[in-house]
């Protein structure tokens, strides 16, 4: 089985609810964002590019692409980032990471991986989110893990469960009857930087 995500760009309004629920559910340290919503257009979020005759703006939710052929897992010298063959999820072992940042350099998806450059700091003095969310560690790399802890319980990743636009879908890409497979069969889609041959498990409906 291979878990994947299908994101309908027509339905994404750039609200960043997914970014916030992701941060809360996984108790992500301050200033680390696993799940970004990027603006294609101007130089700042929610600004349009082009000219006034035809201003252009499109939001792109971007997190770890959980590649079938990940660049990161190959280069990690100790296997702290590894592909779970059972689920297709690219995972992170914080207590194993030596902090060499090979994976940051290897990942073609700019910005999806984060390093804890300092002792993780939080806005609350108690842990937010899922009780079984992974504990973050200083000087280790982290990223979207498809909310492994939730998926293991049979739940949806936080960003999917609370997507306002109902733009996100999650499921087994290997199962032709899954919602994600059906969407891919019926809609036109694109992938981020497919040219790198990473075979991302995140698809964007256009």
């Amino acid at each position, binding site marked *: 089985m291979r878990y994947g995500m299908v994101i309908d760009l027509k339905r994404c309004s750039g609200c960043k609810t997914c970014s916030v629920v992701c941060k809360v559910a996984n108790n992500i340290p301050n*200033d680390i964002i696993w799940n970004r919503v990027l603006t294609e257009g101007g130089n700042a979020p929610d600004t349009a590019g082009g000219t*006034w005759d035809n201003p*252009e703006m499109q939001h792109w939710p971007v997190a770890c692409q959980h590649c079938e052929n990940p660049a990161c897992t190959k280069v990690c010298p100790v296997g702290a980032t590894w592909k779970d063959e059972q689920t297709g999820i690219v995972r992170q072992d914080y207590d194993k990471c030596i902090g060499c940042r090979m994976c940051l350099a290897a990942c073609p998806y700019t910005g999806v991986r984060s390093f804890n450059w300092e002792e993780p700091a939080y806005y609350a003095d108690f842990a937010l989110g899922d009780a079984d969310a992974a504990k973050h560690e200083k000087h280790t790399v982290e990223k979207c893990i498809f909310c492994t802890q939730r998926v293991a319980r049979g739940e949806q990743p936080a960003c999917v469960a609370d997507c306002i636009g109902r733009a996100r879908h999650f499921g087994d890409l290997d199962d032709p009857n899954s919602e994600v497979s059906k969407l891919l069969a019926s809609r036109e889609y694109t992938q981020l930087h497919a040219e790198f041959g990473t075979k991302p498990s995140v698809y964007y409906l256009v």
Partner: protein
Amino acid sequence: MESVQNTTGALTRRGFLKTTAAAALVAGGVSAAGFAALTPKTASAQSDEKICTTYCNACMGCPLEAVVRDGNVVLTRAKEIEGAPIDQKRMCARGASIPTLIVQEKRIQYPMKRAEGTERGAGQWERISWDEAIDTICTKIKEYQAEFGSGSVCSFTYGTTEPRNMYNLNRLENVAQFSHQNRTTDFALTQGTMYTAGGFYYQGGVDMDLVSQMSTFVVWGHNPIVSWPNAWHYIADAIENNDCKLIVVDPNKNTIGQKADLFVSLQPGTDAALALGLAKIIEEEGKTDDAFMQQKSCAPFLVKESDGRFLRKSDLEEGVAADADDFAVWDEATNAMGYASTAQNPVLRKKGIEVAGQRCNTAYSLLIDRISEYPIEMVSEATTVPEETIRTFADLLCRPGMADIFQGYGIDHYGHGFNTIAAVSVLRIMRGMVPEPRMSYPLNSSGFDETETEHPAIVQSLGTFMFNDLLDTGKYTFPGVTAHMGEQVMELPDVTVEQPLKMLISFGANIVNSAPDRNKTIEAYKKFDFLVTANIEWCDTADISDIVLPAATIQEVGGPIGMNGCLVWADKAVEPKFEAKSDYDMANLIGRGLGLDEWFQEEFDEGMKHVVNTAMSAAMGIDADKLKEAGVMYVGAVPMPAYMTMTGKLQFYQENPGPIENYGQPMDPASIALPHWEPPMEAWPVTAGGFDANPLAEKYPLIVTAGTRRFRVHSYYGQNPLLREMEINEPCVRINPVDAEARGIEDGSYVRLFNDRGHAVAKATFSAGIRPGCLDIDRGWQRSQYLSGCNNDLTSKQIVDWTCPTYAYHDCLVEIEPWDGVVAESQE
């Protein structure tokens, strides 16, 4: 079972190998293939957690679940709403950020008083006890009321958390006879939709069952993607499943504009001209829904030429009971006068009808006369929308299938806002768009249930625009007008309100930040002898107060809310942090401190029952206990027998409109009887549509509007660090690169916006979606978050239309220049 692996600090892949047996036990029946097969939309609680019902009070009262662990809200998520015919699950980034909102650094933690001997706003505070705070406040109230009258103490009772919780605050204001500070904001949309169609449509989650069915949907003058984010997916449903054409009318092409099939950019403040021009095209092309207008609108009503009022049965017959009154129409079936309720075929287009010695015209014929003043050439010139686009727009409005127009606060924020809302409503009525009469279930927030109405509850309503004069002279004078009632003309003299002001108690909101012309607001606030502010967080209003009270959040208080088809009774999920108290308890403490104990006997849970237990609830079989038990109840939009307008019909014609916010001002009802277009008072830099350009535009050529932003509601939520991570970390102003480059402004550089009222320093962000000649500055950053100035330093408190007084935030001219980093004038 090796598939159930979890990478946590406790259980890693490496650690897992040693704990396989334990994991297998824990995992029980989980499928062996990968993780468990996904069961969408379920969320479980961990064993040491409790799940509470709550809601987000940012805007739409979205029902949420709060996950509570060790006495803290650790997570919020959208609550599944059972019994709703459509997917009502909703929570945006603001709701998701509640866990950190509760514990944010900027929360007011304890009652504080301004340190002895320091200036207001100096930021020096001393912690005091609740007893001392309440004692000081009550002593002051008694002193001022004894010397200067009860109204010398003014209160702002919008509530620190949510309007529905202002129950006890209203009671305090009424019983103690404080004068009432009116926010004077957003009233054009409220009054405009109420008077024409009997209420709001499509705000937040309400009426969304209809949106998904639309074939044509118009979003006019706002950006629901940002201001009511949960509305978006219904629109997206319509587009995806129903091939709905989305039309967006806005000066700037922002996020909703990007999703539109037809985006119509117009000169700011010309919406009414565009709407009336479209109406003219639809009428001339014979595409009006006459049957709808005959049955559901005031179109066939006969309007007397003598006084401009509808001709009623009670005008023609003696002894007609009020509830049996009817409206005269001309019935083509009988070619004689008939009544609206019985006529077979009431005529719409007929003038000069003589009935019982009264010369009458149908209301619709009056409208036709009015819209004839808006030929497409003139409309195109005034709005700058090409004629071809206007025709395409008209064609799309007449597409087969369901259509409607979603109006918002963007077109409200003009002096003539009411006229704009009413003009857009004309299209809805002519095309039969307005759905059957319905109403989002309301809760009673008046502060009195039906048994208590004997208490005098009328207090003097004051707008902040009156404060400066009242504090200087104890008086405010409204200008007299010449009022027109049909052929009658009346001279109404000036009206002077006398009201000494000494003390202001603000419960919630952040008027200093959100009212226009902030420098004037501060000037006024500083003239009060005593300022008390209760708020959840430190804000511009709290900063300049004498006593500050810590208010509790919804999650710390709980209680009922009814919004957008859902009733919620929130649990008290956690204990109030620090020494925060609910609005309800604060009102009780002050009420009791003033010796008004008899009115403030009940504690929160008891008192809140009155809010739910209304006559309407009883009729629907709902009561507080049931709601409390259920947590969330879906009631949907309640069908009503008639539209909740003055006549029970859709009304493009107002025969005797009064303001919904009455300060005692004289006014000319004729000014809004039929919608018309007038350009903005200030933001009119062009000569077009028969109106000369405002010469001020030579000095200040750009129109600035403060659009809503995703991560705050006005200033609320704007200091929540979790949300601050999601946006640029300081106030920004969006500008078209063309305007920027003409002024030597670079993308991402600091700029100064200024006019005669003040200035604001912000970071310029280029966007080609901003209409050249316009600027879109952020809304809701606190003064302390600005390097200098504030967006509302630029805006004006001028009231244009006294039949519907509302602040014209968007009627504002400025110039913009690169900022050299020097604070141009001393900041308070």
